[in-house]
């Protein structure tokens, strides 16, 4: 009975927040805020850099170029992305099914 009373006193949002913090203890100190905003502003960023790519190619003439790991969407970090690893953008030349 006592614990039930306690639960009633905690607003549902706070209870949810506690759940989240339990799962991800290192989640940002600032509530909501800048992390999301920066992620939102950077939508669409792909890090293929032709300069890096060509320099890496020149340095590693005889070795195989490291290519992107299984997650083809992540082309940043230590490995040098290749043009093939960038997801291909196809334009939708098919008519919308709404018009079908």
């Amino acid at each position, binding site marked *: 009975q006592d614990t039930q009373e306690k639960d009633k006193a905690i607003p549902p949002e*706070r209870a949810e927040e506690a759940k989240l913090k339990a799962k991800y203890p290192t989640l940002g100190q600032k*509530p*909501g*805020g800048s992390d999301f*905003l920066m992620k939102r502003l950077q939508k669409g960023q*792909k890090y293929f850099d032709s300069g890096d790519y060509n320099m890496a190619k020149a340095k590693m003439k005889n070795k195989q170029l490291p290519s992107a790991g299984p997650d083809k969407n992540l082309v940043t970090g230590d490995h040098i992305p290749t043009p093939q690893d960038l997801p291909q953008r196809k334009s*939708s030349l098919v008519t*919308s*099914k709404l018009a079908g």
Partner: protein
Amino acid sequence: FLGAGGGNDIQWCFSQVKGAVDDDVAEADIISTVEFNHSGELLATGDKGGRVVIFQQEQENKTQSHSRGEYNVYSTFQSHEPEFDYLKSLEIEEKINKIRWLPQKNAAQFLLSTNDKTIKLWKISERDKRPEGYNLKEEDGRYRDPTTVTTLRVPVFRPMDLMVEASPRRIFANAHTYHINSISINSDYETYLSADDLRINLWHLEITDRSFNIVDIKPANMEELTEVITAAEFHPNSCSTFVYSSSKGTIRLCDMRASALCDRHSKLFEEPEDPSNRSFFSEIISSISDVKFSHSGRYMMTRDYLSVKIWDLNMENRPVETYQVHEYLRSKLCSLYENDCIFDKFECCWNGSDRQVEFLSLCTSDLSKLIVMTGSYNNFFRMFDRNTKRDITLEASRENNKPRTVLKPRKVCASGKRKKDEISVDSLDFNKKILHTAWHPKENIIAVATTNNLYIFQDKMN
């Protein structure tokens, strides 16, 4: 709730559904915007694949007085294509974020469509005759040898099957560093605004090589960024006034007569927060995903994650009305954050059609927009009657698709024992979101977009 009787309650019936039946939805088919034109005769949709489909309402059939004209495909075209900005290593989606119609001035129709970076003015025109009887060309287009021409004739226009052509008349590009979320046509019908996360630009519809920056909230140091612009709209009657909403739940009203750069608002609308209720989620769920002025411009409506709020432009410190869309989600915020649903951007819209009570706005509050509508999950959408304070939940589903049968109200069971016909919160399908809805400007016809289908409902006509 609405529909339980009472003379003025609207009873909604299924009318049509457009789109594929199969559950396997291609990304390109995801509907991203829905908009009626000013007369309601045309209904435009935009999708993630950059395509626009326009439907036209059939002329009313005098013999079929029990239903209004159906919407059939009028025109479809590829508005935007995917692009890659090599300089910034930025992928530019072709997804159509917004469509806005221009009021009709001549035989052709014009609309603005925008993706994240580029706004385009499209002209949609009809061609129902073509010239025939050229002297130097055959009917199939091949040129005739002039020496074989012995008599001359005057080419004449002959009727042909109606062809609807869409052509891009203006391309407004390179004015937005960040992603465009809104476009809004001014009541002067000459200019329009486009808003991205940090800036708002003013354009003239005829001029594509320049635009004026009217709002810039980019901080000198990006580390100090705390707030972004989420939506913007011009006032329906006052051509120097516009509003923009933010990710912190505020709305700013600006007057372009005050200064060239409207960084200082004329009014700031913000509801004070209860500090004891503050949590990690507070700011995220307060982010406004849509702002819409009422027809008279006296009120505006905002949509945040859990509610719809009506603001009186004369009162900045709190909304005059708040409607809970799906309050039961407040105790699910943790999982909604984990599956990203908490970032879903729902739109809202006003009833377009209650013009006959507009005269009452002279003596009482603005009753011309009695009902507001917004979407939710599980393909549910909600309507709130501002007058009676009643609300209703309806579902866009192919299971209810018998024309002229009134839609059954739905109910979500938040906790405790679930009654028959209720659905529990845990059974809701969060992949079935209704983000975009539109209300016909004159009649009780609504367009509701599920992920890849467009539903049209109308009120039961007796």
